[in-house]
C-alpha cells in the first residue's frame, strides 16, 4: 500500500474509516515507521486543535449552560426581541398563565363590583329607593322641596313666566334624565360618578353656564345627553331668572352630597364629603337666595360667590375622584396580591412535594450507581486513553472514574475502563465508557455496533467507545454522533 495521506490519517483518528480501511492502514503502520510517525504527529495536531478551540469557550459557559427557555404567554413586558420561536408551554407555565388570567379577571370583577357597590349605596338614599335602582326621584331633591315648595309648580319670589316655563322645561329634563340614566345602568358604573360629577359642575355653573357637561370618561356617552339636557336649560335660564337657576342648581346640588356620601365607603373620605356636601347646598342656597332676591342686579357679588362655590365643588369633585380611583386601585391590587400569594404558595408546595419525592427515590450516590471504583481527573484519563477524554457534546458530565472492564462488553479485561457519567434532562444516566485498545486486540467494532444490552460500540482512533444507557436506540445514536 502506498503511504497514508494526511486526510486518511485524520479520518482514522476521527473514527471515520470503515473496518476494512482501518485494517489496511494499521497493517501499513506495522511496516512503515514514517507513516506511524506521521500518525503520531497528526494525533498531536488533533489534540492541540481541540485544546485551542476549547479555549474559545463563550463566557456564559457554552454547552454546559441550559438552553434558554422560550416562554409563550409571558404577559405585558416584551423583554427579548430575539424570542421568535414559540415553545410549547410546560404545565407550570400553563398553570401560571392561567393564574394570571384569573388574577386579571378577578381584579376586573373587583373593580366592577366596587363600582356597583358604590352605585347601590348611592341609590339607597334615606327611605325611598330600591337598591340598584338608578332613578333619582324629584322628591329626593331636598332643595327642590326646601327652596321651591314643589319642583314643578310656582316658585317663591319668582313669579315670572319665563322661569316657570323654564322650570317646566327643567322638570321635563329632570324627568327625562332619570330615563336617560337607566339605559346606562347596565354599563359599568363608572358612568355614574361622571354623571354625578357633571351634575356637580352643573351646580357650580349656575351663574355662568360656560362648559358643556362632558363626563370625564368618554366611554359613557349616555351620561352626557342627560347632563347636556340639564346644561341647556341652565344655559337658557342663566340669562333670565335666579329662581330657575335655583331649581337647576338644586337637583344636582342634592345629588352631589348624595354622591359624596354614597360613593366613598372610607369614613374619612365620607365625612370630608359630608362636610363638603352640606356646605355646597348651603352655599348654593345662599347664592340662590341672593339670586332669587336680586335676579336682575349686577352680578359681581354673585359671580364671586358662584366662582368660590365652583372652586369648592370642583375641588370636592376632584378629591372624590382621586379617592375613588385610589380605592379601586387598592382593591384591585389586593385581589391581585391575593392571587399571587396563592399561586406562590401552590408553587412552593409543589416544589416541596417534588423534592420530597426526589429525596425518597435516590438513596444511592452517583458513584455507587455507576459502579465507579475510583474517580479520576482529566489528566489521568488522558494518560489512560493516550489522548483526551471523549465527551458528549452538549451534555453535562457528572463525573469521570474507573470501572471494571467486566461492565463493558468488548473491553480488554486486563485493564480498567474510563467511564464518563452523564445524566440527561429527565434524570436518566448514560455512560460513555472508553478504553484504549492494545495491539492485536480482537473483535473491535470498526463500524458502530449494537450490543446485547442495547449499548453502542465503536472506535475513535485507538480508543474503544461504548455508550450505555437505557435510552432508546435512536437517542443513543444521536448522542453517539455528538461524541467528540
Amino acid at each position, binding site marked *: 500500500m502506498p503511504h497514508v495521506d494526511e486526510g486518511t490519517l485524520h*479520518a482514522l483518528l476521527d473514527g471515520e474509516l470503515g473496518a476494512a480501511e482501518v485494517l489496511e492502514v494499521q497493517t501499513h503502520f506495522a511496516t512503515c515507521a514514517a507513516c506511524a510517525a506521521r500518525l503520531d504527529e497528526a494525533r498531536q495536531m*488533533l489534540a492541540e*486543535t481541540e485544546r485551542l478551540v476549547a479555549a474559545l469557550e463563550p463566557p456564559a459557559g457554552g454547552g454546559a449552560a441550559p438552553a434558554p427557555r422560550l416562554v409563550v404567554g409571558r404577559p405585558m413586558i416584551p423583554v427579548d426581541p430575539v424570542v421568535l420561536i414559540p415553545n410549547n408551554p410546560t404545565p407550570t407555565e400553563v398553570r401560571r398563565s392561567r393564574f394570571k388570567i384569573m388574577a386579571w379577571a378577578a381584579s376586573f370583577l373587583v373593580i366592577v363590583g366596587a363600582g356597583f357597590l358604590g352605585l347601590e349605596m348611592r341609590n339607597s338614599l334615606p327611605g325611598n329607593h330600591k337598591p340598584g335602582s338608578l332613578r333619582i326621584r324629584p322628591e329626593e331633591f331636598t332643595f327642590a322641596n326646601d327652596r321651591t315648595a314643589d319642583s314643578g309648580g310656582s316658585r317663591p319670589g319668582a313669579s315670572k313666566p319665563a322661569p316657570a316655563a323654564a322650570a317646566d322645561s327643567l322638570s321635563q329634563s329632570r324627568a327625562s334624565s332619570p330615563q336617560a340614566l337607566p339605559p346606562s345602568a347596565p354599563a359599568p358604573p363608572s358612568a355614574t360618578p361622571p354623571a354625578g360629577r357633571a351634575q356637580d359642575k352643573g351646580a357650580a355653573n349656575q351663574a355662568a353656564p360656560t362648559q358643556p357637561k362632558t363626563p370625564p370618561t368618554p366611554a359613557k356617552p349616555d351620561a352626557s345627553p342627560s347632563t347636556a339636557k340639564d346644561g341647556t336649560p341652565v344655559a337658557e335660564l342663566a340669562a333670565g331668572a335666579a329662581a330657575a337657576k335655583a331649581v337647576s342648581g338644586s337637583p344636582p346640588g342634592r345629588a352631589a352630597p348624595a354622591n359624596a356620601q354614597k360613593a366613598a365607603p372610607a369614613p374619612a373620605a365620607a365625612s370630608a364629603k359630608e362636610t363638603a356636601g352640606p356646605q355646597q347646598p348651603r352655599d348654593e342656597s345662599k347664592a340662590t337666595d341672593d339670586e332669587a332676591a336680586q335676579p336682575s342686579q349686577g352680578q359681581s357679588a354673585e359671580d364671586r360667590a358662584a366662582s368660590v362655590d365652583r372652586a369648592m365643588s370642583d375641588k370636592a369633585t376632584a378629591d372624590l375622584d382621586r379617592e375613588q380611583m385610589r380605592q379601586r386601585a387598592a382593591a384591585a391590587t389586593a385581589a391581585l396580591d391575593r392571587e399571587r400569594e396563592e399561586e406562590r404558595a401552590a408553587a412552593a408546595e409543589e416544589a416541596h412535594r417534588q423534592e420530597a419525592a426526589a429525596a425518597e427515590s435516590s438513596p444511592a450516590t452517583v458513584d455507587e450507581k455507576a459502579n465507579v471504583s475510583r474517580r479520576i481527573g482529566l489528566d489521568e484519563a488522558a494518560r489512560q486513553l493516550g489522548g483526551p477524554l471523549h465527551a458528549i457534546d452538549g451534555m453535562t458530565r457528572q463525573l469521570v472514574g474507573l470501572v471494571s472492564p467486566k461492565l463493558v462488553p468488548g473491553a480488554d479485561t486486563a485493564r480498567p475502563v474510563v467511564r464518563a457519567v452523564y445524566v440527561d434532562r429527565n434524570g436518566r444516566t448514560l455512560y460513555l465508557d472508553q478504553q484504549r485498545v492494545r495491539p492485536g486486540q480482537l473483535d473491535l467494532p470498526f463500524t458502530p455496533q449494537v450490543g446485547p444490552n442495547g449499548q453502542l460500540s465503536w472506535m475513535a482512533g485507538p480508543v474503544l467507545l461504548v455508550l450505555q444507557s437505557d435510552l432508546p436506540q435512536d437517542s443513543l445514536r444521536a448522542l453517539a454522533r455528538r461524541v467528540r
Partner: protein
Amino acid sequence: MTGDAGRLFEEYHDSLVRMLWRRTGDRDRAEELAQETFVRAVAAQPRNPRSWLFAVALNLVREDARKALRQGRRLQLLKNELEPAAPSADEIMERDERAAKVRAALEQLNERDREALLLKAEGFDYEEIAESLGLAKGAVGTTLARARRRLVEAYHDMEGQAKHAAR
C-alpha cells in the same frame, strides 16, 4: 409545528450559538444569527436539520462578514482583538489573551477550513460536515488535516511573535 420548532431549538441552539461565537467572536451577534437561522428553519423545515442549520448559519456569517469587510468593521474587530492588553498575572486576562490569539489564528485559515474545524468541534461527523459545507465526504479529512495543521502553526507563530515582542 411549534413543537418541532421547539425541539429543534432545544436540541441545537446551544451548539449553534457556540459555533457562531467561536466563528464571530461576538456573543450578541452569535445569538442574533442563531435566532435568524431558527426562524428560517421554521419556514424551510429541512429534512436534515443539523447540517442545514449550521450551513445556513455559516452562510449568514459569510454574508455578514462580507458586508462588514466593506464597512471596515472586521478589520477593526481584529485590530481590537490583537491589541495587547496590559500585562497582568490575572488568570482571566490570560484566558482572554489566549482566546484572542486563538481567534486570530483561526482568522488565518481559509473560510472552508475554518468552518470545517468549527463544525467538527460541535461534534459533526464527516458526512454532516460534507453536507453542511457542500464538500465531498472524501475531501473532509483532507480539509480538516489542513485546517488543524494551519491553526496550530498560526497559533505558534502568534505566540512566537508575542514572546518576541515581550523581549
